[in-house]
């Protein structure tokens, strides 16, 4: 089954920006997965120092330059992508199932379940993602990547509840749902086997768009010092550490910052492409 | 010749899609004279609805291929600019759709929607004059309390009433041509007849020609003087009402008429399990009287 020949890909490729986005995302994924093989100095990711080589601007040997303790920034940026991508994936792996299940139940079962679930969702939605994540992290003893992931997930699931709830509400009135009810199908079957498949286009689109946004929020948190701790390379932390040294050692912040920009842009373009391809509104 | 209002010559329409090119209209020819009531009857996929879209200049996307001529008031409008079409739509050519509530904007009161239509007639008309003009039009169609209707929102009107309002709006600028796309399908049968009668009255008064698009032969018989039967983008038969109903010539027309359950209760209509490809059988034209 050649995916490039399918009708969907034809529609997707109508917009050249979507193809660019796809290339960016695939490129970053490739680099992150094969990081040990493609980076020149993988050992710079761990505890490594080379004060003789510190703060060198970009050169043929270190194409992004070296940082304050002599580590190659290019290698660290590529490994930083690993952290960013895993943050995105883990957060959504937690938020999406919770939000989806809640949205389906609230939208289909209705009555008291709907009221309780949606009011809880409203409460979480009222607090901006960054603020919510910060307060949760503040409750835990010392910051690390894992806690950051949990905190961001808590800020994210309500959006999925709302999305799935809206779709469920509109699908609920379709003929095939009442046909299944009259047939005697269980509520569980109707929610997960009849309604959920109809949510997939919107869900996939939103997940793609969110991957970029989660990475952005995660980078903001690590910019504030709450991300992965040293010596693990984290793009947000790298931007923060380099901020005070601008504009002289400009390469400390620019390349990690640009890396964040690139991956967020990539996911955004792919998400928009999916939005056009599926013709949905998320 | 000079009585001719709309002449469609060798009209072709194709869409370029992923699966290939889909030809929806294959060189169709039709003619309407001033004040004439003509029906274009066919089933889904026949191309009857896209014909109205072409007459209104609504198919301009890049994957659309058009050829042939649509001559309206001695002018070929097939490839007219959007700017010129705006002058024609609502003024010289009006349209009524199947679902009256879909034609009306749900968030605006009727009086505001009438005002928009009146602006097509005179783009400097004041709201007051517009209101008066609209009320007069509604009274003329026996709507007893036009002020109440004007202040209502579309959802507050019944289906039949909404359709009468839509017909009135379409006719208020006395267009040369009224396109009616399945105008009665969404209505109950008794209301349907009232809507058709209303259309008949109004268009006769203003000598407006009507192109009625439908799949319902009963409606055709009630309303039309001349009939074109279309099947998969091809006109297969053309004739007067009397000719088509008393002496249908083309096998497709005959199949259409046979498929309708009859009031005599002689049982369900017979159907052909392996019908021929109707598009390949040549067009049947009745001899002119």
């Amino acid at each position, binding site marked *: 089954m050649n995916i490039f020949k399918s009708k969907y890909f034809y529609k997707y490729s109508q917009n050249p920006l979507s193809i660019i986005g796809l290339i960016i995302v695939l490129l970053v994924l490739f680099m992150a997965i094969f990081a040990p093989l493609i980076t020149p100095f993988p050992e710079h990711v761990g505890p490594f120092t080379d004060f003789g080589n510190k703060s060198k601007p970009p050169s043929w040997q270190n194409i992004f330059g070296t940082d304050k303790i002599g580590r190659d920034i290019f290698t660290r940026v590529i490994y930083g992508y690993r952290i960013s991508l895993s943050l995105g994936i883990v957060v959504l792996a937690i938020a999406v199932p919770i939000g989806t299940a809640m949205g389906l139940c609230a939208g289909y079962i209705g009555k008291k379940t709907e009221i309780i679930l949606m009011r809880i969702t409203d409460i979480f939605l009222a607090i901006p993602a960054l603020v919510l994540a910060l307060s949760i992290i503040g409750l835990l003893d010392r910051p690390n990547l894992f806690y950051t992931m949990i905190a961001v997930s808590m800020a994210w699931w309500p959006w999925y509840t709302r999305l799935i709830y809206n779709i469920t509400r509109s699908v609920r009135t379709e003929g*095939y749902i009442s*046909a299944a009810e009259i047939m005697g199908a269980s509520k569980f079957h109707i929610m997960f086997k009849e309604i959920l498949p109809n949510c997939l286009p919107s869900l996939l689109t939103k997940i793609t768009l969110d991957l970029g946004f989660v990475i952005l929020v995660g980078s903001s948190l690590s910019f504030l010092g709450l991300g992965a701790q040293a010596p693990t390379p984290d793009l947000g932390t790298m931007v923060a550490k380099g901020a005070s040294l601008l504009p002289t050692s400009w390469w400390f912040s620019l390349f990690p910052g640009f890396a964040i920009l690139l991956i967020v842009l990539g996911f955004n373009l792919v998400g928009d492409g999916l939005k056009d391809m599926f013709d949905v509104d998320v | 010749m000079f009585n001719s209002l709309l002449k469609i010559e060798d009209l072709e329409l194709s869409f370029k899609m992923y699966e290939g090119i889909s030809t929806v209209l294959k060189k169709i020819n039709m003619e309407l004279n001033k004040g004439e009531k003509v029906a274009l009857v066919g089933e889904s996929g026949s191309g009857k609805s896209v014909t109205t879209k072409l007459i209104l200049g609504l198919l301009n996307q890049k994957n659309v291929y058009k050829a042939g001529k649509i001559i309206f008031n001695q002018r070929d409008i097939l490839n007219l600019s959007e700017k010129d079409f705006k002058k024609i739509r609502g003024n010289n050519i009006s349209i009524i759709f199947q679902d009256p509530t879909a034609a009306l904007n749900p968030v605006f009161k009727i009086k505001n929607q009438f005002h928009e239509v009146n602006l097509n007639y005179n783009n400097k008309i004041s709201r007051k004059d517009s209101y008066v003009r609209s009320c007069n039009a509604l009274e003329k169609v026996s709507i007893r309390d036009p002020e109440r209707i004007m202040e209502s929102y579309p959802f507050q009107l019944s289906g039949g009433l909404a359709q009468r309002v839509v017909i009135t709006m379409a006719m208020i600028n006395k267009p040369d041509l009224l396109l009616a796309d399945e105008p009665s399908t969404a209505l109950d049968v008794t209301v*349907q007849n009232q809507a058709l009668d209303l259309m008949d009255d109004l268009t006769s008064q203003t000598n407006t020609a009507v192109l009625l698009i439908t799949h319902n032969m009963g409606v055709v018989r009630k309303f039309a003087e001349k009939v074109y039967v279309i099947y998969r983008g091809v006109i297969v038969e053309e004739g007067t009402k009397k000719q088509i109903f008393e002496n249908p010539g083309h096998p497709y027309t005959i199949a259409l008429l046979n498929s309708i*359950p009859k009031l*005599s209760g002689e049982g369900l209509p017979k159907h052909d399990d392996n019908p021929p490809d109707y598009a390949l059988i040549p067009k049947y034209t009745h001899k002119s009287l």
Partner: protein
Amino acid sequence: MIKIDNISKKFIIKNNVIHALQNINLLIEERDCYAIVGESGSGKTTLANIILGIYKQDQGKILFHGEEIKKYRTIKERKLIQFVQQNPTSTLNPKKTIRDTLALPLKIHNIVKKKNLDSKIKELLSYVGLDSEFMIRYPDTLSGGQKQRVAIARALASEPKVLILDEPTSALDVIVQAKVLNLLLDIKNKFNLTYVFITHDLSVVRNIANKLVVMNRGKIEEYGETKDVFSNPQSQYTKELINAIPTVLESEDKLKPKLD
């Protein structure tokens, strides 16, 4: 077989009380093709929904084979009364193959063992005149008539005794409608089914139903054997309805009743 015993239902929408059904009494016997005729607002769809257990009546009972059935149905009750809807486009889940759509009732009611599922589905498709290759297709590749056939096959899957048909052919083209109506009649005879046929189309009723009831604003206007009601309509409303039918032959015109 199905007795509608003094059913009433009202809806309250924004302080307006709408009496959808008022004291409806009907008796549908086995192997009837019982038509419920009315225009919009007549209450015919509300009645169908109550028979199917979608709505609950305010008063009155529905008796099936002498036993009362309520809104909450057992699986067995659901098996015996099935439904074909008006709109072919929304009646099939666009994300499921025809096979999966037809498998659902078979699984719920344990009609066949898992290994025989596919062959049973092919059998159902053959009843409605569809080739087995339709199994792997999705609804968006089917025409309106084909979708409606699948809906009929789905209704037959649970081996019901009664089919409630709500305007099953109104959304179809006229030639396709003739085919589907013929199919419905064949299936009724083959499986000894009872039909409750809800429609506004009197020409269809004239040719398919043996009994009919005319409803008007929640009340029964007239009822009886089809041929009797058509040849000698009693109520003014029924006469108006028959007169309004868009007929295509002069011979039909002559059959219309004279209005007072």
